[in-house]
């Protein structure tokens, strides 16, 4: 099956800073990919280039189309919610439904109505009268009612309380996602989407520093809880990251067989949040200040 996204050597510079620095990316249909990175790492630039919102150097095809030159046609099959996207304040809910029905060939009004029926949103309300939570629900109802092949979500749950966030992700899986659809999600709330993802990429300084299927995470990364007296032994195996833990250290290893680590202590697959911190603070990037990656993790 044709790749949904195929990117080779994507590069984008703003003045002297490289927002994207030779990014290669493949996304197959039916996958849910998480794009995780600290602020300013190039996440939004990457998404924008995929959506044809910003020109970018390199090879890029989305659903076999060039996002820059075939943008309007592409957007019939790709839907997205940008993190900064705000519905216009003057728009009425009923008008939003009318408008989407009029301009989008794949918008299914009944679906949007069904989503909205579960919320307290009135058809006659204007966007400016809705609470922050309702606003996001409305936006999601509009976008999720589009039968698109690729859905791009940039911080979809930003500013929502935990109830809304849980609701959102369960509705995304239950009501929206199916084998023909592909999702690309960025979020700072890594732990909330961890169980949802089939693939994950980490981006740092415009480069991908992790690009794996979630199923491969087990075999590639191991977290070891080691007691103080065995720290030196564990250190010798070259952890990419270590932090103090109760009665010893917690270390993360990359491509070290779990069998070799097991005798030293308790092993498990690291959580995405821990792996993210590990990757962002990896010692082979000495230039980065210690706190640089932390703001990206909730």
């Amino acid at each position, binding site marked *: 099956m044709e790749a949904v996204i195929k990117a080779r050597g994507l590069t984008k510079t703003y003045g002297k800073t490289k927002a994207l620095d030779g990014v290669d990316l493949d996304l197959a249909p039916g996958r849910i990919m998480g794009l995780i990175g600290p602020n300013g790492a190039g996440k939004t630039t990457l998404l924008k280039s995929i*959506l044809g*919102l910003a*020109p970018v150097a390199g090879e890029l095809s989305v659903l076999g189309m060039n996002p820059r030159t075939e*943008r*309007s*046609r*592409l*957007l*019939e099959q790709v*839907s*997205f*919610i*940008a993190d*900064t*996207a*705000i*519905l*216009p*304040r*003057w*728009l*009425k809910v009923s*008008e939003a439904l*009318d*408008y*989407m029905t*009029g*301009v*989008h*060939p794949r918008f299914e009004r009944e679906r949007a109505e069904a989503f909205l029926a579960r919320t307290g949103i009135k058809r006659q309300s204007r966007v400016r009268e809705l609470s922050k939570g309702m606003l996001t629900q409305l*936006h999601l109802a509009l*976008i999720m009612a589009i039968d698109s092949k690729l859905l791009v979500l940039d911080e979809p749950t930003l500013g929502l309380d935990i109830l809304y966030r849980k609701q959102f992700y369960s509705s995304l899986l239950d009501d929206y996602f199916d084998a023909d659809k592909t999702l690309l999600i960025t979020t700072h709330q890594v732990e909330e989407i961890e169980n949802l993802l089939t693939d994950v990429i980490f981006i740092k300084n415009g480069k991908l520093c992790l690009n794996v299927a979630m199923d491969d995470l087990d075999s590639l990364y191991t977290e070891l809880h080691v007691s103080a007296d065995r720290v030196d032994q564990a250190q010798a195996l070259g952890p990419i990251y270590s932090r103090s833990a109760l009665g010893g250290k917690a270390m993360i290893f990359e491509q070290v067989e779990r069998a070799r680590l097991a005798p030293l202590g308790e092993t498990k697959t690291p959580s995405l949040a821990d792996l993210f911190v590990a990757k962002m603070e990896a010692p082979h990037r000495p230039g980065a200040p210690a706190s640089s990656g932390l703001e990206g993790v909730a």
Partner: protein
Amino acid sequence: MNKTIMQLKRELWECRASFIRTPIILAGLLMLLLIVGQVTVQFKLGDNFPQPDVSNTEVESSGNGLRLQLSDDRSYEIDAADLHKLKSGELYSSHPQLLGAALGMIHIVFALVLLPILSVYFLGSLYSDRRDQSVFFWKSLPVTERRNVLTKLAAGVLGAPIFFGAAALATGIFYLVLISVYTGVFLNLPLPGLGHILSSFLGSIASLVAGWLMMSLWALPIFCWLMFCSALAKKVPFLMALGIPLALVVLEFWALGSRHIGSALGDQAKWALASLGKVIPFPDQIGIQALQMLAEPALWIGWLISALLLAASIWLRNYRYEI
């Protein structure tokens, strides 16, 4: 086509207050003024209007008509046809241009109110969604910027005038009814012929539409300039729209001592406004004025500039839309 209609609707939803409510309010206001005016006229005629001294006036038949001989040696001849018209109250039908002019004046008021509203609309058209970031929502939908920009232009030049025109016509009809009631009830004269009223009314609709279109064709580069500034500005498009031409005029005068830019801009605005005054009250002038207009090279140059400004606006919306 469906998408274009939806885009136009969107503009109307957004500008409901200025495009729809304003003309309704204006019509209400004008109708009130017309009533007040008519009542005042009635009052003046009844009490204060100097009654002609008819004691020394001799009225005699002359041929088929009448001959009035006033005491100060002035005399008036009224022929039979005029007498008939006068008796049947067909002032407006014997002088249709009078009715046309009255309707025209009403229409010009609407056109003059619409102009500043359109200026504000165009200045915000490609700016306000960038400022409040809703541009990202619009851009998530399969609508090209070309369609977006062109429908915004159409919504301003053709859409808004429909509502203002309808309100103007409603006010015109109200005025006709008012005049008829005044003539029929207060002056107790038979009403003017329906045919005459209708032809005056239809003529005034034609001149209203033609006058507005001619004005828009002249003002097109100005509208497009406002849209361009709206797409380009990072803040306060108004200052850019006014500041750049002003700076050019001053610069030209300072560097070359000439005033070509200023006079070209002035001419364009003058022509645009003149079409309102020359066409709207005078339906019979439509053809002549249209031909005159099309013969002006400045018009065609203006269209060329408009096309360039539109192309630049579309480019800006595609490549430089983030504030």
